[in-house]
């Protein structure tokens, strides 16, 4: 089926990724580990922009940026340069942001997402390095605030801004793109996406080939989907009422789920970009071969390998490779149990239970899922019991074996089931007669009796099969 994009929606995304796995900031030696620290405790003359201070590029940040560029299938520029983006804002201590302009470190890349109608290539325009500003904190609520405090701990953190072409045709595709991006960055081990502000999104959207509108201040992936749904609807309604869409920048109000106009094209800033005189142009091409060696197997490659090596379904392979942690978990599991069974248990059952609880794979031990699977495979517990064990571990903790003992989940032995089947047949002649006369439903009644006799520890399906066998005699 081909997706025909009836409203001619075009979405491009600019994603700011904070390289919070670096030890130090982009241009100074301040630690990046500020998230649980007092305000303005991780600052120095450079990231406070004190007069006379000068930036020095963090070499490791350059390496991270090259790594990201390569993972996004970009070409890496021969020589990169920093520029100044001039504007006034209290969180910007120098009155300009040091960023990259016409020599971004990486460009012309692409990633593949699961689109509306199968695989879809999203082109990456560029990925460039820049510094994060500080953070404003309003005392009280923003409308009736007594004042604003500025925390410069974040100031000077290294960011990578990844800019896509307007290749996404729906909020869903945008969401898939963001998920894929996060997955890749996760694999590269360049950032911790769980920290506040680790990924921030700006979107540009147009419908019916009209002017594009930029939507800023999107702080989550869910927010991105909501903001885009709203903005597309707004543009369509506006056009339907005879209006035209003009180029403007809008702000996403997360609480109300709406976008509000910030400024029109005429009010756009002139940032007066010019080369940062305090940083010399940086040759990066020579470093690429070294960085290539450090590139890990990326999600797409891992998925392909899982399908081949473990002979598992495309759907399972994808689910298992989105998060590097899940992929590693699965590979530990398959060293002990059958890969196909493991795929079902990890990708479908365990991930489902984790998602339901908003937990990550860290919440579960490899040995525990292996125990559960081995017991199921050995027919010692039922599948249902296996699921119950997983739920119990997640909700209350404990080891599978203890849970089995405590809840009496071990399947009853064969002869007990056989005995219960014989007894149930002997004690319910009417139901047996009905079944033999063709009333299929009466079988359920007899199965129920078997379950009663075994206190539910028999496998219902197994009991049914045994009854059918027995009644044929």
């Amino acid at each position: 089926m081909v997706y025909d994009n009836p409203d001619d929606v075009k979405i491009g995304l600019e994603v700011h990724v904070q390289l919070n796995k670096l030890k130090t900031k982009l241009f100074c030696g301040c630690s990046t580990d500020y998230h649980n620290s007092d305000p303005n405790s991780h600052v120095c003359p450079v990231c406070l922009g004190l007069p006379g201070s000068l930036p020095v590029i963090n070499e490791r940040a350059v390496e991270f940026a090259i790594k990201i560029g390569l993972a996004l299938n970009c070409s890496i520029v021969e020589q990169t340069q920093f520029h100044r983006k001039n504007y006034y804002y209290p969180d910007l201590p120098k009155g300009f942001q040091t960023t990259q302009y016409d020599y971004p470190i990486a460009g012309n890349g692409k990633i593949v997402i699961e689109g509306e109608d199968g695989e879809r290539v999203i082109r990456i325009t560029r990925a460039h390095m820049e510094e994060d500003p500080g953070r404003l904190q309003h005392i009280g609520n923003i409308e009736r605030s007594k004042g604003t405090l500025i925390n410069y701990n974040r100031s000077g953190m290294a960011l990578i801004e990844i800019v896509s072409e307007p290749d996404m045709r729906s909020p869903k595709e945008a969401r898939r793109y963001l998920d894929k991006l996060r997955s890749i960055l996760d694999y590269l081990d360049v950032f911790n996406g769980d920290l506040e502000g680790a990924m921030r999104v700006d979107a540009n959207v147009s419908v019916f080939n009209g002017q594009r509108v930029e939507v800023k201040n999107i702080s989550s992936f869910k927010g991105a989907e909501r903001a885009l749904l709203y903005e597309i609807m707004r543009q369509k309604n506006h056009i339907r009422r005879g209006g035209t869409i003009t180029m403007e920048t809008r702000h996403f109000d997360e609480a109300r789920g709406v976008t509000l106009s910030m400024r029109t094209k005429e009010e756009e800033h002139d940032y007066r970009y010019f080369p940062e005189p305090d940083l010399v142009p940086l040759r990066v091409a020579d470093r690429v071969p070294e960085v290539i060696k450090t590139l890990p197997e990326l999600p797409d490659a891992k998925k392909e390998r899982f399908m081949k090596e473990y002979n598992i379904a495309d759907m399972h392979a994808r689910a298992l490779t989105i998060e590097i942690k899940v992929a590693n978990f699965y590979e530990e599991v398959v060293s002990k149990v059958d890969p196909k069974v493991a795929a079902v248990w990890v990708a479908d059952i365990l991930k489902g239970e984790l998602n339901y609880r908003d937990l990550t794979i860290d919440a579960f031990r490899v040995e525990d899922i292996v125990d559960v699977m081995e017991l199921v495979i050995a027919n010692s517990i039922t599948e249902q019991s296996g699921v119950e064990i997983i739920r119990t571990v997640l909700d209350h903790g404990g080891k599978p074996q203890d849970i089995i003992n405590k809840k009496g989940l071990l399947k009853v032995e064969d002869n007990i089931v056989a005995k219960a089947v014989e007894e149930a047949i002997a004690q319910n002649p009417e139901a047996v007669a009905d079944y033999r006369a063709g009333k299929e439903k009466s079988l359920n009644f007899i199965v129920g009796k078997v379950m009663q006799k075994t206190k539910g520890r028999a496998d219902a399906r197994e009991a049914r099969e045994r009854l059918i066998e027995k009644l044929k005699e």
Partner: protein
Amino acid sequence: MAAWTDISGIRQKIADSSAEEVTASYIDIIGKSKINGFTTLWDEAINVARDIDANSHDGPLAGVPIAIKENISTKGISTTCSSKILQGYVPPYDAHVIERLKEAGAVILGKTNMDEFAMGTSTESSYYGPTLNPWDPSRVPGGSSGGSAAVVAAGEAPVSLGSDTGGSVRCPAAFCGTVGLKPTYGCISRYGLISYANSLEQIGPLATNVADIAAIMEVVAGHDPRDSTSINKENTYIDALAEGVEGMRIGVPEEYLSHGIDEKVEKLVWDSIHTFEDLGASYENVSLPHTRYALAAYYIIAMSEASSNLARFDGTRYGFCAEGDNWHLMASKTRAEGFGAEVKRRILLGTYALSAGYQDKYYLKALKVRTLVKQDFERALANVDVLMGPTMPTPAFRIGEKIGDPLSLYMSDVNTVPINLAGVPSISVPCGFADNMPVGLQITGTHFDEKTIMKAAYNFEQNTEHHKKRPPEVA
């Protein structure tokens, strides 16, 4: 009584008495100053000198007093760029050069006056009022490092540091009859120097003689990882001074002796070149054809960079802060009240030159001119060892004479700014007097060849009497 004492003289005095007494005698002289050269005296100076005595510090500048320009960050000492907007700002860190000076045992006396944010040629635009020329208090000391030159000329400090963006060390050195060096771009770390135009400026020393310049350079020059534009080069200068200038080839750029030059200044320059001839050097006329465009390019680049560098002064974090109902009003008012007229003019012009639609016409074109100017120097210096000409086309002008006419003030930088565009080193050395005011000879060399220009200046000094003359009231 103020007197010119060179570093070796200071060391002798310290040996005879103590660093404490030497520092105390300078503090005493500064206390009687009539030239407004110092803006702030460091109240710790005497304690530092005492510690030098107590620890028998054996650094190359142990106990040597030094004056520091207002735009070089000094931990614990007010550093304001002579601007209202930085009133109350006390840096929490030392500039790289200050760290080096302290390690070498130098005693920082205090901070010296300058044109606000180094934007000027006369030190008249300072928030603290003008500095007077020790040779004639009705005249300017030059700028922007006017305070640093004037205090050395007045015997209030034996040596000082200034900064040179377009002539700001060499101009006041020439006007005040001292020696001043603008090193190669990248020779001295700018870490801690409050930027006016980062791609052009260098910190540079001023002194009464060339040997002292070399002594300071050996301490402050060299690579600093905190300044990405600083370069690792050998920094020994003193040993080379005594080598002669026999066989040295001197280029005399015709452009530096053509427009607007005072006849007496021109004659002194030729006399100087003939002195070099007598010492075994030869000269030839050379051309730096793009000089006529250099001034315009320089001002566009400097103002563009300045418009961005000075954006951080918004009253939010340090320095002067005006009242305002919201942040934007507060920041606007702070800047409106905190910056002087010349600084505002340059911020506005620089902002304009970088604006969309004008950047190609001004800023980018200026960068192209800069490349051409650089090539001029490369070509000229391929055939000669040094270039010589007048540092300034005239002797020091009168206070108030040009301040109302920015364009004529900018024009007086015509011989100094091309050197900053090219990034090459240049020294101004006294070469005589016109109308009883000192005149400077500018000697320019190739990148990182400070040795050759210092050697030339030293030989000239040793074979002339100009540097022996003192301002009135100075022994």
